[in-house]
């Protein structure tokens, strides 16, 4: 088991989480993760990391400090990302997920990276 398996497990046990990925923030490559069948993990990893990089630049330009949580809310689901040290924890949820709980778990997971 990898060093990140515990983090992934803790996030995916929440109802509605269809994927949890540990992603390299610079490369957008999946380091560790699990996902339901049909979820394109490579695409989520690459695009979420790209969004996070751009959000980091926007926050820096506004002198807001570091990005703590990136939350993309769409019609039928959400992508949430948090991270440090060049790694991101990315959770992909459907509409059933309790966003507050998942967010707390994600922040806890990111602190453990």
């Amino acid at each position: 088991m990898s060093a990140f398996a515990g983090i992934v497990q803790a996030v995916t046990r929440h109802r509605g989480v269809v994927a949890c990925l540990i992603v390299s923030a610079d490369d957008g490559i999946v380091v560790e993760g699990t996902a339901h069948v049909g979820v394109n993990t490579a695409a989520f990893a690459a695009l979420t990391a790209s969004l996070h990089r751009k959000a980091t630049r926007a926050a820096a330009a506004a002198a807001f400090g570091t990005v703590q949580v990136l939350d993309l809310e769409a019609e039928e689901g959400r992508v949430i990302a948090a991270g440090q040290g060049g790694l991101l924890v990315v959770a992909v949820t459907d509409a059933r997920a309790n966003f507050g709980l998942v967010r707390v778990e994600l922040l806890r997971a990111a602190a453990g990276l």
Partner: protein
Amino acid sequence: MAYATSVGWAEAPLRRFVGDARVELAVLLHPSGQVLAQVGFQRALDVQTACALSAAIHATSGQLGRLVEGAPFRGLHVGGEARQFYIGALPVRGSEVLLLAVFDMESSLGIVQLYLEELRAGVAAAAPLLEAPTEPALAEDFERELDRNLAKLFGRAE
């Protein structure tokens, strides 16, 4: 079946890839080093150099792959301080087209790899079929064709 090594047909899928993946420079080339399309280069000599080096790197890494795991490596990524590059092989009609993509922090390896399949499909769809040669290919023809392709790419062709 293989594809023709003339220029022009590969430009549209390459431009789409450059826009989607937000890379700075990109070249599609035949494994022999002959350029098929380029985006972002300013000088023909730079394209020629990039193609020669990319073809050599791909051949070398392919051999390394055969040594290590019995099959050629499909892609190579090198990260620099401000820029990175990726060299990968796209299977097209039983042959290969090589891609050299140079990118900075506007893109990433994951993004480049994400759009590779789309590029491969676009190149495969656009590639004109190679007509059966009536005479053997000569080294002098390679250089003349390379010069003609470069001239076409940089708008100096007749």
